[in-house]
């Protein structure tokens, strides 16, 4: 799928604006990602472009709930999430004349939301990497043999109970912003590596490295939980002891 990192359908990239309240988030290129809904309807877009207030409200009511859920997952804070959703809608509506309808409206709007969330993350104080994140980075710099590996006997991820699901979500929210964001973009929003690199303004190589570290950080957190909750088997005391 073709995408331009800076423009879409003639819209401008507003990435460098720092005041998200008055400056809308950048308008990303269209990609077929998990969209909050199919609003590719030409009639609706025509109403939006004509400035039909009812059309704006219809879109907010139809897509606002799912957009808010996405923003909460990315920002871990409902107030910030609401602001990001508002920024995204305002950005989309103000740039609606530039929407060229080559992608679904919902997809376009979703990408604007992702950028609004990233703006929000950039402007709030960064959450420092936790000790477990740092631990994961040690792994990345060496190999698994440098850390004990708990042998998980956790249930199939398809069969996780409510408590475990809640704990997994909690552990994800406790990742550093940088790690949580890359996991959200790649594993949840399902942007590909190149798209993620463009959205974050980093290299493909940096995306891979950051994603790997983020997954390792989460693995360490979940491993700790599974061990503490008795859902893990005996830990490998070290690779030397556990090799066949």
């Amino acid at each position, binding site marked *: 799928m073709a995408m331009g990192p800076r423009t879409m359908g003639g819209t401008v990239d507003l990435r460098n604006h720092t005041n998200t309240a008055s400056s809308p988030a950048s308008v990303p290129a269209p990609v077929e990602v*998990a969209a909050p809904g199919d609003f590719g309807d030409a009639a609706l877009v025509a109403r939006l472009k004509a400035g039909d*207030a009812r059309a*704006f*409200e219809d879109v*907010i*009511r139809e897509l*606002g*709930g*799912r*957009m*808010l*859920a*996405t923003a909460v*997952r990315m920002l871990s804070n409902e107030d910030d999430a*609401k602001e990001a*959703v*508002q920024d995204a*809608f*305002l950005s989309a*509506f103000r740039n609606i004349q530039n929407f060229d309808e080559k992608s679904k409206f919902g997809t376009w709007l979703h990408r604007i939301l992702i950028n609004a969330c990233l703006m929000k993350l950039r402007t709030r104080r960064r959450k420092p990497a936790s000790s477990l994140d740092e631990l994961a980075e040690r*792994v*990345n710099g*060496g*190999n*698994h*043999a*440098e850390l004990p*590996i708990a*042998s*998980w006997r*956790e249930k199939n*991820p*398809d069969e*996780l109970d409510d408590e475990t*699901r809640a704990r*997994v*979500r909690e552990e*994800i929210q406790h990742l550093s912003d940088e790690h949580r964001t890359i*996991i*959200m973009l*790649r*594993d*949840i929003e399902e942007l590909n*590596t190149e798209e993620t690199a463009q959205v974050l303004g980093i290299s493909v190589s940096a995306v*891979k490295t950051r*994603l*790997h570290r983020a*997954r*390792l950080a*989460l*693995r360490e957190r*979940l*491993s700790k939980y599974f061990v503490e909750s008795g859902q893990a088997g005996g830990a*490998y005391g070290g*690779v*030397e002891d*556990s*090799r*066949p």
Partner: protein
Amino acid sequence: MSCSKGDQHGAAHVSCKEICQFLCDYVDHELPTAQRESFLQHMRDCGPCAEYLRQYESTIKACKKCMCPGHSKPPPPPEDMVRAIMKAMGK
């Protein structure tokens, strides 16, 4: 076949350290065919690496399972948010 910390398998020619570097590309289906074969050979030979891979994949699956919205319709947006957006739009 066993391998010691950081050494290489004779057959696969991939060390445990290199495996860590390939892990992300492997699960994202971005590993070139030749490296994929070496990676899989290492996994067949190295129990800890195989367990490590399993945990890595389980982590991603658990994350998706717990965070993906699925196909259910989400709750409607809060009324205060709708009103705030419309007000900001001057509508």
